[in-house]
């Protein structure tokens, strides 16, 4: 493959008389950039024909990898990333080459070049059009495994972002390790809170019966509003995290409560009224 690449470069040289010094500068930086710059340089003389050349050259020479249609989304993302990265690398090569190159038009045309298959001698390298072409980032492999690995890593980072929204105070920390630390601490603190509250409950349990009927919707509404702000802000999240926390109570529950208070009598009745209360709870739940 390298041989044919070199052949192509020589062909370009002959065609457009690129200075060999320039080649030396770019020699070790990767064939991809080399080819792109070559084509751009070559066409700076003749801008009218520039776009046609891009099509043929970029379509043939550029390093592409084919990807199955299943993971369309990832490919698009990769494409976008690749596009962006392309611009960056072009910026770099600009400085090296000390020539002004219009990057935006060229990237667009090069993408078009991929979709339009040209029938040059190197067209055998081009894969079938059913596949979505993903331009490899500079320095990254294009084989299937690394692409799959990349997709997996992106999934992980998506989920980490999701967790970042849930766990308060995670925004300040960057990096996987720090965030994981925060998450671990948060989960531990929540579990400790639960344990502490249950300990409290066990102490108070004998008095539970007498007071449980005072459980009101207002209390529960308050508990919804008291939830940490970070949790209530995020209503739409990716994947599993799709719990919009609304802060409105439910009508019928409050209605039960208002009726409940009227039946409250002496202590003797408290247990029976609590029975009613719990029955209402069950009725309510069964209605839903």
């Amino acid at each position, binding site marked *: 493959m390298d041989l044919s690449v070199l052949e192509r470069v020589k062909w370009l040289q002959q065609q457009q008389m690129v200075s060999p010094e320039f080649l030396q500068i770019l020699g070790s930086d990767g064939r991809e950039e080399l080819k792109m710059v070559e084509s751009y340089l070559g066409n700076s003389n003749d801008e009218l024909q520039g776009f046609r050349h891009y099509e043929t050259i970029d379509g043939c020479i550029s390093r592409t990898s084919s990807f199955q249609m299943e993971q369309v989304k990832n490919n698009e993302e990769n494409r976008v990333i690749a596009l962006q990265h392309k611009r960056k690398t072009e910026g770099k090569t600009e400085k090296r080459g000390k020539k002004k190159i219009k990057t935006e038009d060229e990237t667009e045309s090069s993408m078009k070049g991929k979709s339009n298959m040209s029938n040059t001698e190197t067209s055998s390298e081009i894969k079938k059009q059913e596949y979505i072409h993903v331009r490899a980032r500079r320095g990254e492999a294009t084989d299937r495994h690394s692409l799959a690995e990349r997709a997996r890593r992106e999934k992980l980072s998506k*989920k980490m972002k999701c967790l970042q929204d849930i766990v308060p105070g995670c925004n300040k920390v960057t990096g996987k390790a720090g965030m994981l630390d925060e998450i671990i601490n948060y989960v531990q603190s929540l579990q400790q809170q639960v344990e502490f*509250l*249950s300990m409290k409950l*066990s102490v*108070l349990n004998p008095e539970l019966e007498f007071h*449980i009927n005072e459980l009101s919707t207002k*209390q529960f509404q308050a508990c919804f509003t008291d939830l940490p702000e970070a949790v209530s802000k995020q209503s739409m999240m990716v994947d599993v995290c799709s719990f919009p926390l609304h802060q409105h109570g439910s009508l*019928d529950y409050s*209605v039960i409560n208002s009726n409940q208070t009227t039946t409250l009598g002496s202590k003797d009745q408290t247990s029976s009224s609590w029975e009613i209360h719990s029955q209402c709870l069950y*009725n309510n739940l069964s209605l839903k």
Partner: protein
Amino acid sequence: MERQIISKKKQVFSVEPTKLSPSEVFTRKYTSHLVPALKKLNMDKNSSQINQVTVKHEVDMALALSAQEFAWGRFLLQKLSSADSKSSSSNQTQILERSNDEDGEIEEKMKELQELLPGGKEMNVEEMLSEIGNYIKYLELQTSALKTIVQDTT
């Protein structure tokens, strides 16, 4: 007498079904599990016998029953129902030796997280991360529900 009260309440119910958010659904389920269980504890045993472990057990059981749609909830239920006499200590803080390698650190922390999450050891990393997300949320809901119960009894 009681029936009249119940029927009166039924009349006042709203016609349209109210849409409940998952957090409300959970809170209701949770309290409906926990409160009768606590009451039962009161009735069955003398007050001197109620210790923290059983209450914690009930608390965890209520959480597990209310969160059956998640893997961790099912696992928790399994664990609790199979080991009734044992106390479930869910917050073990393990001191792990952090390796110098960055990837190793992250892996160590992932393992720690896995241990925190009930059933986490049997999941792979991706699954665990998504389960952890809703586990945290439901823990928060649980704490707020417990707070209100405790507040009411004091």
